[in-house]
């Protein structure tokens, strides 16, 4: 699948920066491709006002969403972008990536936190939620975030903590894009989201990359029963 929108300029980042933040790899690029495929839906139907990326990393994903996928439409919609990261070094890098790509920083709100903890409940309701979690299968003792997250048993330990939060922070019409690998058991996660949280999931992109089989799963509220 070719990417037609240009990938954000990351030439300001040096190899030393990638000791501190995750260097974009196949999983990041598949997520960009998925967001590009979703561009007509995002621009014509959803027209998001509030976007959240959990785990900002290098900033490539939020920059691509704000600059390439939504582009000038984000200005028309008045879209506000919130990014979080546990790693304090990631957030200045994300800001630098936004600036490097000509995006206005007053539309970007960076918070060092776990998921979106500390954001007051009454102000929740994100129209787009993006998370490229630490999905790699490791021993449970290794679970951590820097610079590339380790996901513990089945790569699910961080993912499973985040799933119950999703329905509480997603707006009524909001969509959630999640990066997974085969070992995370995407179909099981789709079942959990449907049965426990009323969110319908579908795979919007998938690709084999080296030893990983990657998926991008999109979730939205099940409105058929309301």
């Amino acid at each position, binding site marked *: 699948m070719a990417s037609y929108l240009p990938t954000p300029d990351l030439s300001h980042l040096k190899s030393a920066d990638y000791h501190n933040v995750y260097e974009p790899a196949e999983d990041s690029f598949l997520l960009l491709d998925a967001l590009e495929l979703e561009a007509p839906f995002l621009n014509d139907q959803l027209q998001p*006002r*509030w976007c959240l990326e959990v785990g900002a990393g290098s900033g490539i994903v939020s920059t691509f969403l704000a600059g390439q996928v939504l582009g000038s439409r984000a*200005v*028309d*919609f*008045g*879209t*506000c972008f*919130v990014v979080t990261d*546990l790693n*304090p070094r990631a*957030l*200045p890098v994300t800001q630098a990536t936004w600036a490097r790509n000509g995006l*206005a*920083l*007053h*539309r970007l*709100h*960076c*918070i*060092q*936190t*776990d998921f979106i*903890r*500390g*954001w*007051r409940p*009454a*102000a929740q309701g994100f129209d787009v939620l993006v998370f490229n979690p630490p999905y790699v299968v490791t021993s449970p003792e290794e679970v951590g975030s820097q610079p590339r997250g380790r996901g513990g048993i089945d790569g699910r330990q961080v993912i499973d903590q985040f799933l119950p939060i999703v329905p509480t922070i997603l707006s009524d019409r909001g969509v959630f894009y999640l990066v997974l690998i085969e070992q995370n058991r995407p179909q099981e996660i789709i079942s959990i989201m449907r049965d426990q949280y009323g969110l319908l999931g579908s795979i919007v992109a998938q690709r084999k990359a080296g030893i990983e089989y990657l998926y991008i799963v999109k979730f939205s509220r099940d409105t058929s029963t309301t």
Partner: protein
Amino acid sequence: MRLLTHNMLQCHVKSCNDPALNFPLQFQEVELEQIEAEENEALLLNLVGKIDWPALVQTTSELGITGLPPTKPDVVKNDPALMKRLHEILLETNVAQGKMVCRGCGHSYPIKDGIPNMLLAEHEI
């Protein structure tokens, strides 16, 4: 960190759950700077829909920032002077350094190089 971001954050220490006290967090020892930003009516109206007005009034008053009516006008859009002031306050007023302290439990959330740190220790979650 823009003042807008502050309006979205509250103390989330597990034992601290008095909504009258855990929001808004109180700024202390803050270093403020004005950073010019392009005006965008759609963005501003989007923000106005989400902000907690009394908390914004309280916070700006504590920082010595004036120019906001005590209650939220029904229609902000028709008041160009207020729109401009809101733009300056929410999007151009930047907190470079300082801390945000909870009025309930006293927990202090540092702001370093414009980025608020909302992380808690394991026992506080």
